[in-house]
């Protein structure tokens, strides 16, 4: 047993961190549940990503006329060919790494995902995508329902959430998915040192094993403490991971490095959830200037994902990993008076991984503002969806996680043309 003393708070407040010297890399439980199997990483672009700036229809005259200040010039997009409706498309110029992954056939773009009657509210949108239920979105998350179907007892580290909060998508009846923003801060501290501290940790573990009867509100906190105590040592093993490439110093970069570490070191997590925000670009969206708001978002996204992809490829872990992105909605086609865009409708999703059939899925909208334009909605203001977002989930659940999407999504949303995996 090793006790390390360190300053863990600023302002002269110290405490003692208790760790065990040789943590088991993998619990027996995790091993039994097939940790060497596949990993799913779900990436949420928070705020409503502007799909038209990420995947640009650079020959559509209406794209330019409706976005006089924030259109991306056709000459600077990274061309990725034409889709089934013969619309020429290009990535945002800062997505150079993703373009390479696309060219290697390992990145699939699914255009115009959404659902009927969406309210354009962030909060309702997030809940709808989280529960995979556009009409009753207050229940468990779709990932939570997947975890509920795993054979019990479920390893407390079966899921790994890199954001500090606990999003609805991970809400489950049986598992409290740990949120581990920084593996190095995920440790047990005590006011005492040495043997006294070790005793504290043992008592805290003993208390956490208590199960209060008929006190659901209290039980929920107990579950969280139990999950924390049960995962400390495996997480400590990830804290030392640096990877084979240098990750960006952004929060997103750190989160992707932690996920790569958990995958490479085999801690047993199957599902990872990561959030990166700032996509609610109502004003000064500026996708063109090097320090423009949207250009900066794309830089952080590209650099973090590219480092992750390369690191996993270097360590032969790419074939076991699938990453899927989503956002609660796309944005309005026409820019607003603040050189930004307001809340819109159909969104864009991406899927990356060693076993992905890359390419462009679905068709682009025609941006002609004619209210009769069938590819648009809301009087021609917004892009209309063609793929129910649950069809993308269904493919991932059936084709990657090997579970039954109809059971998890409450219906059959399978679409054969979504053959990205």
């Amino acid at each position, binding site marked *: 047993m090793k006790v390390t003393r360190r300053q863990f708070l600023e302002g002269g407040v110290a405490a003692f961190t208790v760790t065990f010297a040789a943590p088991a890399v993998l619990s027996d439980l995790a091993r039994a549940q097939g940790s060497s199997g596949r990993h799913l990483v779900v990436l949420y672009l928070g705020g409503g990503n502007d799909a038209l700036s990420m995947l640009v229809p650079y020959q559509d005259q209406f794209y330019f006329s409706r976005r006089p200040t924030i259109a991306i010039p056709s000459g600077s997009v990274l061309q990725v060919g034409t889709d089934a409706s013969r619309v020429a498309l290009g990535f945002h110029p800062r997505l150079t790494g993703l373009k390479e992954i696309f060219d290697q056939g390992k990145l699939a773009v699914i255009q115009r995902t959404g659902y009927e009657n969406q309210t354009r509210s962030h909060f309702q949108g997030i809940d709808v995508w989280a529960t995979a239920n556009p009409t009753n979105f207050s229940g468990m998350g779709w990932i939570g329902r997947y975890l509920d179907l795993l054979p019990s007892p479920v390893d407390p580290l079966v899921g790994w959430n890199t954001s500090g909060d606990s999003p609805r998508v991970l809400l489950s009846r049986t598992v409290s*998915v740990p949120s581990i*923003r920084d593996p190095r801060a995920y*440790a047990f501290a005590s*006011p005492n040192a040495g043997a006294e501290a070790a005793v504290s940790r043992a008592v805290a573990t003993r208390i956490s094993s208590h199960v209060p009867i008929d006190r659901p509100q209290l039980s929920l906190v107990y579950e969280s403490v139990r999950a924390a105590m049960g995962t400390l040592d495996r997480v400590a093993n990830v804290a030392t991971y640096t990877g084979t490439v240098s990750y960006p110093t952004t929060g997103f970069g750190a989160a992707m490095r932690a996920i790569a570490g958990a995958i490479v070191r085999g801690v047993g997590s199957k599902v990872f959830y990561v959030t990166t925000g700032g996509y609610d670009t109502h004003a000064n969206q500026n996708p063109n200037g090097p320090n423009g708001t949207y250009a900066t978002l794309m830089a952080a996204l590209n650099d973090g994902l590219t480092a992750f992809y390369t690191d996993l490829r270097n360590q032969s872990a790419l074939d076991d990993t699938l990453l899927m992105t989503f956002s609660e909605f796309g944005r309005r086609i026409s820019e607003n008076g603040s050189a930004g865009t307001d809340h819109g409708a159909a969104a864009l999703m991406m899927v990356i991984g060693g076993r992905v059939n890359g390419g462009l899925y679905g068709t682009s909208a025609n941006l002609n503002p004619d209210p009769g334009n069938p590819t648009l909605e809301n009087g021609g203001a917004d892009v209309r969806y063609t793929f129910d977002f649950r069809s993308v989930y269904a493919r991932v659940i059936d084709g990657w996680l090997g579970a039954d999407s109809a059971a998890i999504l409450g219906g059959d949303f399978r679409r054969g043309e979504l053959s990205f995996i």
Partner: protein
Amino acid sequence: MAVSFDQQIEHLLRRAGFGARQDELDLYRRQSVRGAVTALIDYESIEDDVDSMIQRDGYVQVTARPGVGFQPRTVIDDARQRWLFRMVHTNRPLQEKMTLFWHNHFATAYSKIAGLIGGDAATRYLAAKPSEDPGGVRGQIEMLREHALGNFRELLVEIAKDVAMLYWLDGRTNIRARPQENFAREIMELFTTGIGHYTEADVYAAARVFTGWNLRVVGAGATARLEFFYNAVQHDPTEKVFTFAIYPNGSKTIPARPAAEGMQDGLDFIDALAAHPATGPRLARKLFQFFVSEGAEPPAGFISRVAGTYYRTHYDMKSVVREVLLSSEFWDERAYFARYSWPVEFVVRAIKDVGWRGFSVNGALAPLNNMGQSLFEPPDVNGWDAGPLWFSTGAMLARMNFAAGLTFNQRFNLATAATPRAQSPERLLAYVMEGLPTAPMDEAVVAALTDYARGTTPWTGSATQIQNRTAGLAHLIVGSPEYQLL
């Protein structure tokens, strides 16, 4: 189990305040429960001098940066420290509690504003006091504090004109040629009626209502400041039609009026939202979750009583909150320890319970971030996801580790106070538990704590033993699930 008078007062101070210091307990114990509620609500009669105690002996500390000093007007971490200091030491606990409620309701985040106008200015428009600012700027939180139990309609007008809000939801760029929907949507979805009571067409119309509600610079040099400015030339003067009543006669149309008089559009619209039949019940629900319980849906009777008071008093929050705090639901035994503490509530109560001499609230800032709640940094305009969602494992570990840091910092004070009561490990445990009220602990938990107090070697009552065990017990209890409930 009968609830004692002391337990009632402690319940009241946990909910209507941030827990109780000994001097607060002594003060409120001298009154009836009803009298204590009245004293909390009528806080204007209590002197508001808490800020003048900052950096004095006997109070929790703040940490000033070397060479710069303590600058809560321009440095966001110092503004955070000042607010935490107030929560610990104020004699107007309900005012601070309602300020936190409104900060969550009108959730405005520092980082976006700082990205637009810099950290110093962002802090100023969020947290400056007029008395300390050369330009007389009153930051958003000071406005909310001033109106903490004021009139809700006036609060809506103030927030619509608030400089930080005009940045946060982009109202400053809302002009007639291109109306900006961000504030227009959120004032309905989040600040008043809630979702389901308006259409997309209402959002567009509301955006036009607020065209011209922009900003301008006044003054020069050190006294220069931004202020709200109704810019008539940028206002869309044409009529705006809604799907719900705007005027008491049922009319759904804000008439076309000359641009010079166009600011009245927004005032009419705010009147309509304050009077909307969904706004009172929605506020009642939020107040139920904040003050009473988060578990079940609030009883229909509670909603209709509180919403009824809201409309009858023309949106007087003092009357509304009095109705809440005197409700049978608030005093129901089942409501005791039935609410998950927010991270700042947990931190402030722990400081009040464990002790503060020699502790700086600066030491709470990083842990609060790990617990999921930095003041002035709500995750989005919907505020924090309260309730069960506070308790991710990482956030719970952060609470346990804050308890470790605080009890380590206070170990000498704790030992000194405990020594007269430490004749045996059992007595020491009883003493520590008495000072740290929690939801009832099951026998198995008390047994584990008792075993910890007894230790593995015989009890000698040595100074070292008392110090280790007192801090150790306080750590385990403040970090326990039972202590996380209010």
